[in-house]
């Protein structure tokens, strides 16, 4: 046989083998598809795979300083696939003891180690692929579990399965609860959580899961997963400190007067950014809770605070602050109804200046002037004249909703004299001019005052300044001007003067303080006056801004149905306003400058921080405020020591060298830790107050020792 033929025969031999191989494959295809076909198709149903949603991590809601108002904390369910493909018998047998030990130690100490091992072995033999180890494990615990024997081999080799879920938390509890809001199943979404739901919720992912028992599905692998995309963060304009002050002031006030509900809003005058928005209502059990966003969702008759709009309309018509107006000793009949002033002061006068009438909040004074100027009922075309007043309200932007970023804002209601449906009567205009017959939310009313404070420039109130992703800026919301000018410069100036007058010599006089100045208006509205109620209910309002010159904040406080210790805006809502304003002055640097001008506190000798040690800049700032005579014995040291010497104080410099342990006696804890830990020491602290003893002598070399500080 020649070479070529021999080769060919061999080639033919191989060919035959290949053909057989090919036919075997086809035979198997036929077998699977026709002989076993039904089995496999039914198997596909019994394996029961489905795609399951993976919720994306929800974005955070942040306060203006970045602290969390609402955040999602991740939690995990831990499961063990005892029959994972890569978990061989050898490996399981080798490590099951130590795994059982760790599980008993960290997860479930009701088992003995032997019992735990027995259970694991039994479950493995049963074919368990989805044993629940523990639910709701924190991230820290998860990291620990990942280090356990077998588990550390991962899902496919070690059967370690963890499923992430999230629980929504509000680190500040009730603070701005209603404004931050929530999104729940089967409930209308509320607040910013609801309004920004799309931004916060991110994009959900998908994963393939397989049924392992009647109700439980386990992830098949991570191959077909569509990773969820985390939601973005919403950064609000809310200031945690002001919000906290507003809430606690509101709460105290409501408890004091046993009120039904209340709200307080603080707004940044220049931008319209809302700094705080607190809402409290009485729960069934009698406790107070942020149960409804009254500030945005409830429209109410504003009462006397509306008089600002009335006098501004008069100013626009050429009235001066000194124009005499009719008071009639506080009583006057309009059309067919008697109007009575609530302040006793009116009973003394027949006539007063417009300014004084406003300051003492005379109903008759304002209503009679408005009525006379804008058409008394019965006179020719009086409705058309009345309509001119309405036109002013529209000019002032009072007809506009604020379009705040929260669902459910109530729209302002202003009657139209020319619309039959609105039932415009002869008494409508006079009562409207003193705050009845129209409906506004507290926020809308505040925005009107804010506009006056802002020299007539109407801003859009807003709650959200930025959308962020991983701390990076994505989208920002700039302040929006709604109306450039709602009234003439003169009108605004007069309005401000009147509001300042209310505090200086009007209904808010009792709230005046030497610490700072503010401009405001009180309001006390009767509720359900049309019904024959047993007890007349009231709503007390106080709205204003501070300081009078270049105002920074505007604020409104509304209290509904105070039941004891007064009903008037000045006595119920006013003190809450003051408390909030006090706090703003205490925390806002721009306002603080004003404080220094006003207050020079007297400090007793024993309250002085003598024998204390700290940063030079801290002492300098303190001294700026106290203005003591202090002798200075330092050059450019960062750290100083305050001593008393005879009748003056002495500020001595103290050297702190980088690797020599200093004398920290007299330092506050924060400073002491700062200094010592920067040298690499580990600080152990006992007690509170200032350091009075340190465990290592000053002058010792710093070598990462432990040092114990006794504070007292």
């Amino acid at each position, binding site marked *: 046989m020649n070479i070529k033929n021999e080769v060919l025969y061999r*080639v033919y031999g191989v060919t035959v083998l290949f053909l057989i191989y090919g036919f075997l494959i086809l035979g198997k295809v036929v077998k699977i598809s026709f002989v076993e076909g039904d*089995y496999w*198709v039914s198997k596909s149903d019994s394996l029961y795979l489905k795609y399951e949603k993976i919720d994306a991590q929800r974005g955070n809601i942040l306060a203006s300083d970045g602290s969390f108002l609402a955040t999602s904390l991740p939690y995990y369910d831990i499961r063990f696939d005892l029959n994972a493909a890569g978990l061989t018998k050898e490996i399981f047998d080798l490590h099951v003891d130590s795994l059982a030990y760790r599980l008993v130690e960290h997860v479930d100490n009701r088992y003995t180690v032997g019992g735990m091992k027995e259970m694991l072995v039994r479950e493995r033999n049963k074919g368990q692929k989805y044993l629940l180890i523990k639910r709701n494990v924190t991230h820290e615990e998860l990291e620990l579990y990942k280090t356990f024997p077998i588990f550390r081999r991962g899902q496919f080799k070690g059967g370690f399965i963890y499923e992430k879920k999230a629980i929504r938390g509000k680190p500040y509890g009730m603070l701005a609860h209603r404004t931050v809001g929530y999104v729940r199943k089967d409930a209308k979404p509320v607040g910013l959580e609801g309004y920004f739901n799309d931004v916060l919720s991110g994009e959900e992912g998908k994963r393939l899961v397989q049924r392992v028992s009647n109700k439980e599905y386990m992830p098949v692998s991570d191959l077909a997963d569509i990773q969820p995309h985390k939601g973005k963060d919403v950064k609000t304009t809310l200031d945690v400190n002001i919000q906290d002050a507003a809430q606690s002031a509101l709460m105290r006030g409501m408890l004091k007067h046993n009120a039904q509900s209340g709200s307080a809003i603080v707004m940044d005058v220049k931008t319209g950014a809302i700094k705080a928005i607190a809402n409290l209502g009485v729960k069934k059990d009698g406790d107070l809770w942020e149960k409804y966003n009254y500030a945005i969702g409830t429209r109410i008759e504003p009462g006397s605070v509306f008089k600002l709009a009335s006098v501004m309309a008069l100013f626009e018509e050429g009235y001066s602050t000194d124009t005499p107006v009719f008071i009639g000793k506080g009583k006057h009949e309009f059309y067919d109804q008697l109007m009575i002033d609530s302040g006793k002061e009116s009973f003394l006068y027949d006539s007063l200046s417009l300014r004084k009438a406003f300051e003492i909040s005379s109903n008759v004074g304002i209503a009679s002037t408005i009525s006379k100027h804008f058409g008394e009922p019965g006179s020719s075309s009086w409705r058309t004249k009345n309509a001119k007043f309405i036109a002013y309200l529209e000019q002032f932007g009072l007809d506009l909703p604020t379009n705040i970023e929260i669902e459910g804002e109530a729209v302002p209601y202003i009657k139209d004299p020319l619309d039959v449906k609105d039932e415009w009567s002869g008494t409508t205009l006079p009562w409207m001019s003193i705050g009845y017959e129209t409906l506004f939310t507290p926020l809308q009313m505040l925005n009107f005052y804010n506009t006056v404070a802002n020299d007539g420039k109407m801003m859009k109130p807003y709650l959200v300044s930025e959308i962020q992703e991983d701390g990076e800026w994505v989208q920002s919301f700039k302040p929006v001007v709604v109306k450039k000018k709602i009234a003439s410069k003169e009108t605004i100036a007069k309005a401000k003067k009147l509001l300042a007058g209310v505090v200086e010599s009007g209904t808010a006089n009792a709230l005046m303080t030497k610490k700072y100045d503010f401009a405001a208006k009180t309001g006390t509205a009767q509720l359900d006056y049309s019904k024959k109620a047993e007890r007349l209910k009231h709503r007390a309002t106080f709205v204003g801004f501070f300081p009078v010159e270049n105002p920074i904040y505007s604020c409104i406080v509304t209290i509904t149905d105070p039941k004891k210790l007064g009903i008037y805006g000045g006595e119920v809502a006013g003190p809450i306003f003051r408390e909030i304003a006090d706090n703003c002055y205490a925390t806002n640097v721009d306002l603080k400058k004003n404080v220094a001008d006003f207050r020079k506190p007297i400090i007793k000798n024993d309250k002085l921080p003598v024998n204390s040690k700290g940063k030079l800049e801290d002492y300098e700032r303190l001294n700026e405020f106290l203005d003591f005579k202090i002798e200075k014995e330092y050059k450019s040291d960062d750290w100083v020591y305050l001593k008393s010497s005879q009748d003056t104080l002495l500020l001595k410099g103290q050297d702190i060298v980088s690797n020599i342990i200093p004398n920290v006696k007299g330092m506050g804890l924060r400073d002491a830790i700062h200094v010592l830990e920067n040298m690499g020491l580990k600080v152990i602290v006992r007690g509170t107050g200032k350091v009075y003893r340190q465990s290592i002598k000053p002058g010792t070399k710093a070598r990462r020792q432990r040092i114990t500080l006794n504070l007292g």
Partner: protein
Amino acid sequence: MTLSKSITARLGGDKLIWLIIILLTAVSLIAVYSSTGTIAYKDRGGNTEYYLFKHGVIVFLGLLITIVLYRVHYLKFSKIAPFLWLLSIPLLIFTVFFGAEVNDARRWITLPIINLTFQTSDFGKLALIIYLARTISAKQEYISDFKSAFVPIIVPIILTCGLIAPADLSSALLLFLTCFIMMFIGRVHYKFLLLLLAGGMVAFAFLILLSAFFPDFIRQETWISRIQEFVMNSDGGYQIQQSKIAIAKGGFFGLGPGNSIQRNFLPSPYSDFIYSIICEEFGLIGAFLIVAIYLGLFLRTVSLVTKSPKAFGAMLAMGLSVSLVLQALTNMAVSVHLVPVTGLTLPMVSMGGTSLIFTSMSFGIILSVSRYIEKLN
């Protein structure tokens, strides 16, 4: 003259093999488009054309390479064979130690400058087959001699297969089988072949032993679990069950192109299990057609070999064809649970850059051989 006629007139070489390439390319584009639905949705936000386009570019590139190599005289491959093989060895060594780890296996390296990852075993495989075709054909006169013929043949085989084995045992075994068939066809003495089989077993045992010391380099656990699964579990593991469901759902006529359901549940439906998807969408008819195409390629090569005047050409075409068809059949055999699960692709059909490019090269070389045989006749 129509365009197609002008093309066929210009393109020499075996017309049937050209047809096979065109058919496989068409099948590939359809199957990849359909089976990438899930990952395209997952990674590309629903842009399902993304992978089709990417794959299409590589297919086109592959066709260009086929045409270029087909124009080269096949004897030139004989000349550069030792050089190619020598180049492949350091590349393989580099991969074993420094290759990029994908799915737990170190099979890939990234080429500097052009920044392209490729699977070095594909290159090593091609280099070894060309080199072996040269050595076996050159030593035909004294092929039964141990020292002067068998040793120079077997040493490169052991080196290349040994270097591929740690990360990719199935490819190494398949390459070894290809070489074994080449030696058988090339008349290597049966005593040596038996010796080789025994040696292979010893080497395999040694590898297992070695893996106990270097678990990072050798994927012993994976092999054991796959073989265990194959032997113990008659239904197969998760992948196999899903693959069988796909085949069963296909029935006789299939669900129609683009209608696969199992692509959502099968891992790598666009490469390792693409045959199952073809069965699901085109039924038994599709299943038969694919097997027929590969067997057709093999038979066509056999008929070339009968006409080949030169031993090198015959060995080269035969070796490449054996390698190609053996891999294709084994890939299909995995899908139907005839052999344990391996990570082999279906040549010319599966998505995957390197594999497709080197398969195109093999086709180019086979066609080059056929062109010169045609010329002579």
